[in-house]
């Protein structure tokens, strides 16, 4: 009597090409569409994730912040290494991040940044590690990938879009592009079956929060003086 196919598949570790493979504990991104596209249903931990985008301000952190906020409120600690600009405290607090759990590390030399990254990955107390590496070589990434295996952290590196053409030891590579009011998310590499078409994620943008459109640009200083009456003044 032949065993039903489903039973065989359950008993033997057979990888099926159709589904993305679950391979490590994951952290929900809080974006259902993105969770579905990621193996295991979220940001993978203990491996490298690369977020590839060319300039800041396209909503690239909006992708990461909900997961980071959830971690910090669970009492987990987060490190940001070599951010390209000054992170603003009120903005992060508004995004739900518990600031007491976040440490910022700024470095000048690239060697220092690599050293610091390894130290953070070796520590057991950091549960999410976000680093910005405009330039990093394959061997350096490889070394950090090995260090990441020993940690249980979500490790995400921001790198330029062009890096997608180079090979990388990252388990997950996600390319980000602005797409009108949304963010085009293309999963360039993941474990398991390759991803199909890019996702168009509707992310929260500041003009939605403000809830009103801009007034026409004042033509001159006189026009500005006229409108002054109607403006909210915070003083």
């Amino acid at each position, binding site marked *: 009597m032949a065993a039903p196919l489903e039973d065989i598949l359950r008993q033997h570790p057979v990888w099926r090409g159709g589904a993305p493979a679950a391979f490590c504990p994951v952290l929900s991104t809080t974006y259902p569409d993105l969770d579905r596209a990621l193996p295991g249903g979220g940001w993978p931990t203990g491996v490298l994730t690369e977020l590839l985008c060319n300039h800041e301000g396209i909503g690239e952190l909006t992708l990461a912040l909900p997961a980071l906020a959830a971690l910090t409120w669970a009492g987990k600690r987060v490190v940001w290494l070599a951010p390209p600009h000054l992170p603003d*405290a009120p*903005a992060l*607090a508004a995004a739900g991040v518990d600031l*007491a759990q*976040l440490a910022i590390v700024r470095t000048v030399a690239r060697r220092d940044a690599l050293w610091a990254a390894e130290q953070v990955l070796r520590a057991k*107390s950091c549960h999410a590690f976000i680093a910005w590496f405009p330039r990093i070589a394959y061997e350096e990434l490889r070394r950090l990938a090995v260090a990441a295996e020993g940690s249980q952290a979500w490790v995400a590196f921001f790198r330029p879009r062009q890096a997608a053409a180079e090979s990388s030891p990252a388990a997950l590579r996600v390319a980000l592009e602005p797409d009108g009011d949304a963010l085009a998310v293309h999963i360039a590499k993941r474990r398991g079956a390759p991803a199909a078409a890019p996702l168009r994620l509707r992310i929260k943008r500041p003009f939605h929060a403000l809830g009103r459109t*801009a007034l026409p640009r004042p033509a001159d200083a006189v026009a500005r003086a006229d409108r002054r009456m109607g403006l909210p*003044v*915070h003083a």
Partner: protein
Amino acid sequence: MLLEVQGSLRLYGGFARLREKLAASLNEMGLGFSLGVARTARAALWRSRGEGERLEALPVEVTGLDVEFLSSIGVTTVGALLALPRAGLAQRCGAQAIEALDRALGVAPEPREFFAPPARFNAKLELPAEVTHAEGLYFGARRLLVQLDGLLAARHEGVHAFRLVLLHESGSTCVEVNLASATRDAERLGQVLRERLSRTVLMQPVQAIVLEAGEFASLAGSSAGMFGDPAFESEDWARLMERLRARLGHAAVYALAAQADHRPEHAWRRIEPGEWDPREAAAPGPRPVWLLEAKRIGEQGFTLLAGPERIESGWWDGDDARRDYFVARLPDASIAWVYREDGEWYVHGLFA
């Protein structure tokens, strides 16, 4: 140095093991020594001076009595001294000679004060050769750290900071090391010092080093936990922060807190990592995660999307701001926070 070891024999698994351990740590500290063991403190002291001979066979010099007189009457060993009639000895050398012998034999009690370790540490080490590379100092400094560890262990205390002074032929350099939490672990102190030394550039060769520490803090008793234990994690976190700071500098590692000020550049401040600031400042409008140094841009360089939000504040501290903030799209499709002040446009943040 006198040690009462009777009570510790079981803990160390017998005298031979205790002796081995003692010898090993004395060697690590770089100290020469001669061990003597006896039933009484005085006898042990004499035996250590006489390089471990039997009490009777020890030369009289170890007793500190009037050696000249004793040798003139043909007494050269402690054994011969003990054989002399007590009354005669007391008459010739004074009652303290009899008392010393009685104490050595354990006939008379010898009360001693226990050693109280000092509240500061200061130890100097002359280097065998001049050192020109800061990393080379680590091995010498380790010896001093082991001594510091010993002092702290005796006091059940730890240090938050210590200082290594490098003495040159003329002048000195001071290397300050700060720790995130009090510790007395020589291994950890050494690790942090090593990182600190790795970014120290020596202007002159170093001839000697001095390790100084004061302001000891009591250590909270804790046992190392398994992974996931909050106490273990906060200790591990504190160590990570101090390692990073030792190499990158104190200001390179910080945490953020909000501050009640409408001007964005004053609405946040740096605090110590792990410090908790209960104050919350809710901004009335959207705030960008990336704050830039305000940079002037041309009027054609962006498209306004939303706004304005007026921020008018700071007339009292000389950093007056009267700005209308807008959300704008830059040509590279990123969303920026721009403001207009005195007819000029500036970009002040990026909505990441």
